[in-house]
């Protein structure tokens, strides 16, 4: 009897095989939920909440977040898998499948009396070997446009239909190329993702500039400005009551009015300085002038600016301030005292678009934008969300490729090759570790197997074809999901991220080993272990 029962008679304890069974059922359960997601032939899932809200996704990471997981082990696996997504942006579904499969293969040996520790030792060796196989297979190359397109398209076609994936791939690669500065790590922060509930999903585009989801707040301000100077600033143009409770300090109402006026004049002064700059730069030409302010602008100030033909946008988001100067040039001003024409940015076209009660301001035709906006369009909220998730995954895939400096053949090619290599390793290895390596070699095949299954193919038959082709050609052989025949991913342009695969191998091995080594689960809470 476990010691805990002496302290808490209600505590529940599951030991050895029972403990393993608890963990196993959780892992298998999660695997069953996610297995239909994998690959471009996977099943899209529409989730309808109790209140009727709709969520459409095929992304394992999103699904795990949406589900209310009660089982502690399942929750642990889900956490590990979603951490994978946080780090690399992809590979959640494969991680869950792999953990489940490792446990399943291990269970076969454990039921025959092998100690879990023996297996985890083998896992460890196998994982190291698989990583070295991965490194050997990785294709180191210059990340040019076509390679990036291939990587992003591979990631997106598992989430969107091919026409849409094409549209989005184009936009994402353009975005990445625009913000990429050679010699510096890629900053995805410089790509803003903006959603617009409007038209259809295939109208999503890249805007070489910025889109703000708010507009000018004055009826007389122009809706469209060509050849505009852009002043980005962080200056309050609001009349603010002074900090001290001024009520005590004035003797008469006249004096109070004077004080209010003086305070008002302080704000007006700042507005006048902006107007003076506008007059200076726009004198004798037909250029426009747009003020984008991080702080507020009150109606009186707006009125003054509007009379001068200046378009003013207030309360720009903090994160957009840096993007603005990168897109349009110029310097963000923190005070109006040292305004010079040199601090101004430039945009060829600034226009406003109204959609119901939402306004959008497009700042386009910038000279050399180092910050761009992915404008996603869709008829409804859940489509937009799905596009946004896909766009993020696509961007992450591009960044991973650039950071790795290499890509690895997809469509199950790596898994088949790794499994092959591990079986060779097993033959060379002496002693008990063989078992773990064998289990790992079998488990890693889950990816091509499920890919085949989701495409409606016969799992074993397809796998045998792949292995035969691999053995005869010695090249990286992947699965063509349309025909069910082997193909060479490198020729078709199906490329995966090296870092995603590496991360997956690491985390799956660690989690699976930890779960295997659990030999006692106790629970001193209120509800039951069963379920």
């Amino acid at each position, binding site marked *: 009897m476990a010691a805990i029962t002496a302290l808490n008679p209600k505590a529940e304890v599951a030991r050895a095989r029972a403990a393993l069974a608890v963990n196993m059922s959780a892992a298998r359960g999660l695997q069953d939920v996610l297995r*239909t997601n994998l690959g471009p*032939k996977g099943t899209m899932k529409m989730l309808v*909440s109790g209140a009727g809200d709709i969520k459409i996704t095929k992304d394992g990471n999103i699904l795990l*977040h949406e589900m209310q997981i009660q089982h502690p082990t399942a929750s642990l696996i889900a956490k590990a898998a979603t951490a994978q997504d946080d780090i690399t942006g992809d590979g959640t579904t494969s991680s869950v499948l792999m953990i489940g499969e490792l446990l399943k293969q291990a269970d076969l040996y454990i039921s025959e009396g092998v100690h879990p520790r023996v297996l985890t030792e083998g896992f460890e060796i196998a994982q190291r070997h698989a990583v070295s196989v991965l490194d050997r297979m990785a294709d180191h190359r210059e990340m040019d446009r076509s390679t990036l397109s291939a990587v992003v398209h591979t990631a997106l076609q598992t989430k969107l239909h091919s026409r849409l994936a094409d549209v989005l791939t184009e936009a994402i690669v353009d975005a990445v190329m625009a913000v990429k500065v050679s010699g510096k790590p890629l900053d995805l922060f410089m790509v803003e993702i903006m959603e617009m509930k409007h038209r259809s999903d295939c109208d999503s585009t890249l805007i070489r500039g910025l889109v703000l989801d708010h507009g000018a707040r004055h009826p007389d301000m122009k809706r469209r400005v060509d050849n505009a100077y852009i002043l980005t600033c962080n200056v*309050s143009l609001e009349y603010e009551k002074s900090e001290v409770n001024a009520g005590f300090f004035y003797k008469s109402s006249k004096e109070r009015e004077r004080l209010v006026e003086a305070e008002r004049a302080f704000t007006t002064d700042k507005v006048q300085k902006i107007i003076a700059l506008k007059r200076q730069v726009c004198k004798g030409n037909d250029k426009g002038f747009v003020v984008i302010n991080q702080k507020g602008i009150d*109606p009186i100030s707006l009125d003054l600016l509007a009379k001068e033909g200046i378009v003013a946008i207030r309360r720009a*988001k*903090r994160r957009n301030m840096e993007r603005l100067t990168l897109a349009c040039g110029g310097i963000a001003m923190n005070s109006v005292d040292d305004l010079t024409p040199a601090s101004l940015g430039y945009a060829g076209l600034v226009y406003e678009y109204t959609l119901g009660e939402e306004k959008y301001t497009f700042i386009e035709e910038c000279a050399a934008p180092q910050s761009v906006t992915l404008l996603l369009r869709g008829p409804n909220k859940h489509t937009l969300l799905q596009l946004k998730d896909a766009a993020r995954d696509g961007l992450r895939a591009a960044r991973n490729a650039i950071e790795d400096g290499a890509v690895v053949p997809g469509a199950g090619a790596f898994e088949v090759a790794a499994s092959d290599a591990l079986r060779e390793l097993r033959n060379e290895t002496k002693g008990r570790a063989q078992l773990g390596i064998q289990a790992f070699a079998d488990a890693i095949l889950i990816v091509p197997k499920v890919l085949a299954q989701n495409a409606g193919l016969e799992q074993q038959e397809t796998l045998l074809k792949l292995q035969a082709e691999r053995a005869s050609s010695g090249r990286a052989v992947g699965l063509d999901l349309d025909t069910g025949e082997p193909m060479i991913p490198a020729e078709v342009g199906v490329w995966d991220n090296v870092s995603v695969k590496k991360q997956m191998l690491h985390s799956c091995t660690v989690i699976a080993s930890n779960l295997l080594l659990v030999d006692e689960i106790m629970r001193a809470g209120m509800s039951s272990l069963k379920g």
Partner: protein
Amino acid sequence: MAGELVTLQLGHYANFVASHWWNLQEEYLCNGSQVLKHAEINSNVLFREGLTVHGQPKYTPRVVLLDLKGSLGSLKQEEEHQRTQSAQLCKTWEGPLTTHCTEAAEKNEYLRDLKKHKENSIRREVLRPRAANDTRSWSSMESKVYWLEDSVTVWSDFQRVPLHPRSISILKQYSHEGESDRLATFDLGFQLLSHPDVAEDFEDRLHFFVEECDHLQGFQLLCDWEDGFSGLACRAVEILHDDYDAKGVLTWGLLPGPSQTKVPGRNFNHVLNSALAIAHLAESSSLLCPLSVCPSFKCQPSPPLNFPHIQYQADMKYHSSAILASALETSTLPYRLHSSPASLSQYAESLNYCGRKVAVTRLSFPFSLARGWCLPDALTKHDPETSWQYLCPSGYEQNERCFTQAVSLRGVSAHQSRGFVPPGKEPMSRLHTCESGESVLSLYLQTRYPNTPNSVLLAETPIHVKTPFPNIFSSSIDPNGYLGEEKRSAATAVRQVSALTAVQSAAGLHSSLQELCAEATRFASSMATGIEQEDLSNALHSLCSLADNYKFGFGESDLDESDSD
């Protein structure tokens, strides 16, 4: 000219309280579509006018609320859309599609009636735009008495005021129910809102409401203190400071009543979370008001507050939050009237002298007023000991003293507010000789709290406690909120009541904050909180120095204590 306010609701209990609060204000909006111009209370301070999908004007509160997944019940996050085939819903995928439906959440009787009424009125508008007798179903619904105690499990079960779709934000990372994935500690909450994706979404929602404000006054923040929302609130205030500095932030920290689980009292996590929250929020907010019907910060269970004329179950969130909401609805009046003398930051400044950022709220609800009484009559009979309850611990057993206070009384009409002295007769008290309601109340307070600066506000508008406000009034209150001679029958509900609140910078906070600090220190050494030990001790240290701000005189109260010992 009163500026706009944006309200933040962080946490499930905060949403309970706020739901009640918005419902109480629904009366000022005419059928949810128009603001009454003649009203005393300026609804534009808290509500915004927007457009529906069909281009009609619609008033919704200017609010961003956060809750965890699984907490919405039957409330839809998105606007209603036409029922379409699932194939049409998903145009982004040409492969197979499966649908997974959660069992539809059932709407309770009240929500069903409300929905039916709304559909009827839309249909009627379409058929006969100028129909005169379209109030029938409404009034029948108004007079119906609902008992929702059993059917309310989440706050949306009684949310009557519609919310803007941008308002509702559900955090997927943690779940509302169940044992795993709980947002249990301060640190988890703080980390969660520090995550770039979560923070970005929060900032965007906030931005939507802030950007359209011409004269933003500041922010009201309602947050839970027991769970991880305490940390989340601290991070939220940091974000407010980064983006909108110089704007006032008024924070209410909410502690639910005794829990319904078997474990009585609060556990060490709750204590630590509230201690950390007070330490951080007192620094960054303009004013911080703890609110609870359970007057204790500590682990030991304490008996809930008693209000004469109210029978409620303190362990039921639906009940206790209703009482807190009426306190909010009354105490926030100073910056919400058309004739408001002060903005939110000025209101806060009048109460937070010398770093005394924490204030307690006292509530007398319903304020006892019999038909035919005038305000002086009521005040002479008013017994603060039993009916003017502290909605948070403030060491009231020792002293009632406070440094400053803001008192609001509502539901007393102009002709009731001053005493009438028949010529030739002696006035019943000095209160009866005062010229106006304000001076009556000021005089009363000066007598009770000599040498304490008071600010006084009287409003005629009563609190409209229509359904879905719970029927918690004892039968001695008549439908108009007066102390009745006869018992009110169970079939009639109370429609409106008056209330008296005081927000006090109370001297008693010294001992209660010190107690909290001591209690938290006891647990802090033994618990893994996920917080750096140094940060933790810094927080506890600032809590202690905060407590010291509430000493009267120069160590004078210490002397008193040692004398009595």
